[in-house]
């Protein structure tokens, strides 16, 4: 076998191996069922329908004092006929669930408003996060929906960068930590 050809095959194998152990994009736990949108001058109102569930392992981690940071990400894109979609704006809505052992309460902290809400169980806490019905996104300029096709990409994920370092590796290999939803795309009609 030619040496150069052997090198190429080996590189391909290495890449394939890396892909094989790359964390799966398919979320298990966070689902975006539907997203409705409504534009109002420079505001885009988003009405999501989330279905957020934590695995037992994640609940156990929360119960052991590991704060879980959940991020709701939204990206406004402009569709272009010949090229790929253009990203216009990004929004991140971080939420943190942590356990307060003294009060035996699960605290949800809104990363933007810093409002704290308490829940007796982790399930109630995540449900509360998922029950938010409205997000009002500020736009730089009004959308010209009549002329341009816009869509909103959304996903809900666990921010593993804020997890303790030893736990980050588990997010790749442990199915219980594969909670992230996929990117979903929703057209903006009006």
């Amino acid at each position, binding site marked *: 076998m030619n*040496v150069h050809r*052997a*090198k190429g095959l*080996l*590189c391909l194998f*290495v890449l394939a191996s*890396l892909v094989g152990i790359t964390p799966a994009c398919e979320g298990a736990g966070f689902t975006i069922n539907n997203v409705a949108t409504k534009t109002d001058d420079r505001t885009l109102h988003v009405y999501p329908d989330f279905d957020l569930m934590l695995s037992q392992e994640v609940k*156990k*981690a929360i*119960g*052991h*004092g*590991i704060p879980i940071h959940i991020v709701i990400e939204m990206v406004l894109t402009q569709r272009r006929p010949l090229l790929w979609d253009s990203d216009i704006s990004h929004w991140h809505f971080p939420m943190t669930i942590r*356990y*307060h*052992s*003294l*009060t*035996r*309460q699960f*605290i949800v902290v809104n990363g933007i408003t*810093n*409002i*704290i809400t*308490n829940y007796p169980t982790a399930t109630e806490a995540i449900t509360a996060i998922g029950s938010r019905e409205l997000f009002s996104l500020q736009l730089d300029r009004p959308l010209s929906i009549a002329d341009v096709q816009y869509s909103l990409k959304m996903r809900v994920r666990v921010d*593993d*960068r*804020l997890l*303790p*370092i*030893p*736990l*980050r*590796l*588990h997010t*790749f290999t442990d199915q219980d930590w594969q909670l992230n939803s996929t990117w979903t795309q929703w057209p903006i009609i009006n």
Partner: protein
Amino acid sequence: MLVALLLVTQYLFSLATQHSPTLSPYYTHLLWLNIIGIVVLTVLISFNLIHLYRQHRRSKLETSLTWRLLGRFALVSIIPLLVIYYFSSQFLSRGIDSWFDIHIEQALDDALMLSQSSIESFKKDLVTKVEANAQQFETHNNTLEIIQLLDEQRESNDYQEISLIDLSGRVIASSQTDPTKLLPETLPESILGLLRREEQFSKIEPDESGGIRFRIVVPVYNLNPNIPTRILQVLQPLPNRYARLADNIEAATVGFAKLEYLREPLKFSFILTLTLIVLMTITMVVWIAIFLSRRLSAPLRELALGTESIAKGNYDTQLQVTSDDEFGILTESFNDMAKQVKLAQRKTQSAKKRAEEEHTYLDTVLRHLSSGVMAFDKRLHLRTANQATETILRIKLEEAESSPIKDLEAKFQWLSPITEMVQSCTDQKLEVSEQELTLYGPSGRQVLLCRITPLPVHGWFGGGCVVVFDDITTLIKVQRNAAWGEVARRLAHEIKNPLTPIQLSAERIRSKYLNQLPIEQRATLDRSTRTITQQVESLMQMVNEFANYARPVEMNPIEVDLNELIGDVIELYRNSQQVVNYHLELDGSIPMLMLDTGRLRQIMNNLIINALDALENSDDPTITITTTLAGKGDGWVEISIQDNGPGIPDNLLDQVFEPYVTSKPKGTGLGLAIVTRIVEELGGVIRAYNNSLGAMMTIALPYRLLASIQEKPDQKGKQ
């Protein structure tokens, strides 16, 4: 450069593992970077090893040492690394396990329970206080009064917030410590539901600052039944002195719980970090080992290649001296050696050229020598023979060279006198020996003057002997002819001359005095003169016969059918008076031969006459004449005459072919001698022996010399 990059990424990764605020978010990326780096380095090492292996298969000369050095370097480095890795990972694992002392966990749990109990107790006291506060609102319905009462209660009880809320959740009035807070805390529907059912609600909950507060919600009944039940909500943070302790316990408990939860992942991450470091170190070690082993073995490889080049004959090889250490000294020595070898090679070539020239000169001299030269080594194998040897002895040099002397004798049987002489001189270790040998070969009878000289023993190739020989057949013949001619001439002159006057004198005396003598004296005179005349004639005849014998044999060969000629000769004798049975066994394959018919008849006549003389008193005289062609080319034509007489007397058998040797009373004794001369002139050989039948005479003539022009072997070979 790759190694340096890997070291940097490894350092950054270790910092990220230690919760560096800048690098922690990039932990995963750094991890993958390290893994990719290690994989890339491993791939590069693999390619290098494959390349090295292929080089090794192509030429072990270039890579054997590199492989050995590489193996040893790698072994020396990797084994301690693995030992350290094993013990480090064990140490890490046990060290982490040692953090989780059951006593610590128990203590923290107990502290938490104690805190919770204290807080619970505090809450109960607060509930009682709030219930008492609620009773004060039973009679107050005016908003201003309510606000004032709320402020009083807040200040006196040091509440954070106190609010009066209706059952629908609407805040009637509120008093707060924080003036910046515009709205009071609302009640969730679940709590409102409880209050509607006239149950109180109390909860310990974390506040925005991370501390603990109490939320006490009690129903407020009004004495006025028209006024619906209201709700009094009090938010009271834990007092500072308790809050700090609670925070500490909370933090310690959460921290320990977190650590306990992360126990295994922590061990895994540390061991993973250690593993990556060890892997990276191993790959770096192997990479460096490849580099070092190549560098160390490069000078030796150059030397080996240089040696190989010199072994192939490229004496101009010079290596570059790249260092001043032992390798440099070795390289310089090699270069010096190469120069010396080149010089020696030049001298050798020059000597070889001279030797070749000498050899060529010697070979030319030998080739042009008229004498035959044969050189035998100490094992008596024919080492060298010149062209004259081939010509004289009629042998092919390419068949004879390097043959042992016994094989020579077997292949060329006519050389047996020479080989016996050589063997004899060698066995007896004679200094020099000179002999005259007679060979009967393809050239017929040859007389060679041979001189054997032993060769001195010098080293490996010494010993053996040199045989120098000359064909003196013609010389002997000429000398003999000259000698015999001279003898004949002198005899004729010295004997015949006086015989004539004697004969004439006797005849004159007879003619003159016979008639003058008395009758009784005449007979004596007549007898005496007659005797003198007869004896003179006899002497004359003897001299003439000797002159005939001494005369050179002249040959006039023509193409003759030998069998036909013999048949003609025998036919003459069949008609003679002596009755003899003649048997002819003539070989029909004998072709036409170049023979002098007169001389051949002379031979046949002499031999037949001898046989007839021997059969005079025989009862059944028989003469058998046989002709045989014993092979063409180097073969012989044999003529045999067998009689059934008494045979040749034993005492004459060895001398029967010499002149004047005869058993017959009347013979001159020259018949067989003349036959022998003729046969020898023809290059043949004659033998006489007795067998059970009688006497046998055999003549063998060389075919090569007798073959006609069409049948000449040489010309046939040329054809």
